[in-house]
């Protein structure tokens, strides 16, 4: 019927990639395995856990030796209650796409069921766990994937994780004059009306006044 990469090919390629990472890096504490999504076609992805000190080396190896050419997302999570070892997490999603430059007038038409070897698309999820700290730092992969650039800026802007070696770090979503150190996705910042349990206290909405109710316009 319609084309798709078959489950067996996907699993085999994922396991090959995960084993390659484990063989090379397991001595420094990087663990890689092929895990399956929980729903849908239940495809596999390479799940890697990496300490922050070795992230750059792993990233370089993935980029140049494994053909991981697409950085999908870099995001951060704040765990104030995660214990001493888990204070922050940086989660990187990468993909290996079988893409190469084409000559004018030529197109690379993959037939999905016939892909094999290094052409099989892969998903990677790298979890970098940082200890409890007020200044989380992770090496930047800006020089490896251009797509990581604005992802890292956004992660710093919203979550507050610093990326060492990142040039021109700036606020991309929050206004430029946001207070220094204001990273809204940290758990100590609450939403407006956080404690206002409207359904029980104010069912008809009389008490929720807009912030400018006393302003003269």
């Amino acid at each position, binding site marked *: 019927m319609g084309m798709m990469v078959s489950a067996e090919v996907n699993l085999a390629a994922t396991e090959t990639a995960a084993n390659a990472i484990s063989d090379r890096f397991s001595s420094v504490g990087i663990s890689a395995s092929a895990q399956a999504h929980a729903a849908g076609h239940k495809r596999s992805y390479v799940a890697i856990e990496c300490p922050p000190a070795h992230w750059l080396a792993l990233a370089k190896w993935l980029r140049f030796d494994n053909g991981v050419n697409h950085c999908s997302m870099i995001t951060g999570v704040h765990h104030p209650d995660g214990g001493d070892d888990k204070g922050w997490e940086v989660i990187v999603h990468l993909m290996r796409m079988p893409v190469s430059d084409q000559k004018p007038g030529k197109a690379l038409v993959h037939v999905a069921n016939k892909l094999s070897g290094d052409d099989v698309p892969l998903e990677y999820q790298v979890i970098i766990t940082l200890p409890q700290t007020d200044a989380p730092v992770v090496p930047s992969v800006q020089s490896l994937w251009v797509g990581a650039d604005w992802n890292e800026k956004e992660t710093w802007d919203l979550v507050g994780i610093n990326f060492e070696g990142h040039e021109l770090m700036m606020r991309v979503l929050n*206004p430029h004059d946001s207070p220094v150190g204001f990273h*809204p996705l940290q758990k100590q*910042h609450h*939403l*407006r*009306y956080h404690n206002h349990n409207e359904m029980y206290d104010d069912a008809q909405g009389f008490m929720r006044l807009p912030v*400018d109710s006393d302003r003269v*316009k």
Partner: protein
Amino acid sequence: MGEAGKNYAVFNSRSLVEMVGDVTDEALKATRLKDFIGVLGGRFFNWAQRKSLFPLHLGIKCCAIEMGQTGGPRYDTERFGNGVFRSSPRQCDVLLVNGPISKKFADPLVRLWEQMPEPKWCIAMGECSISGGPYFQSYNILEGVDTLVPVDVYIPGCPPRPEALIDGFGKLREKIIRIGAEPSSERETDAPIIVGDD
């Protein structure tokens, strides 16, 4: 008893124009024609202003797509007179706010409002510009555009249907009949018109 520097002995074109203007003014006042022309002109200008509203070409979020669809062939809003969107605020008289106002956009929005010449009106379209909408809890969204500019008509909906937008413009026209070209800073904003209230 003349003003310092003014030479009444000279009869040039400027003093001729002034004299003719003064004489005509007094004549019109005497025959009550001035009031007559004033009322007629005022009514005429009011009719012209409300039948040809020039909204600003501002598209913030989803309601802007509905604004676009309203200008499309099915709900053609141009036939009612509110379809000519101008990109420059200097040429507009309606600020149609169609999305949430973030802290970053508050200053540009006020600047756009101030660049629009009088008479001008503001329509808050959609929940986000009325009260913050689904993002009322957000750290970055203001609770309604009426924290920044005085709003004349509120159009609820998320997004409002094109018919609601056309009705909103209709309500604005009724309001223009009522208030004329009153400057926006002196309008009472505690009795706004809300589409769907009747």
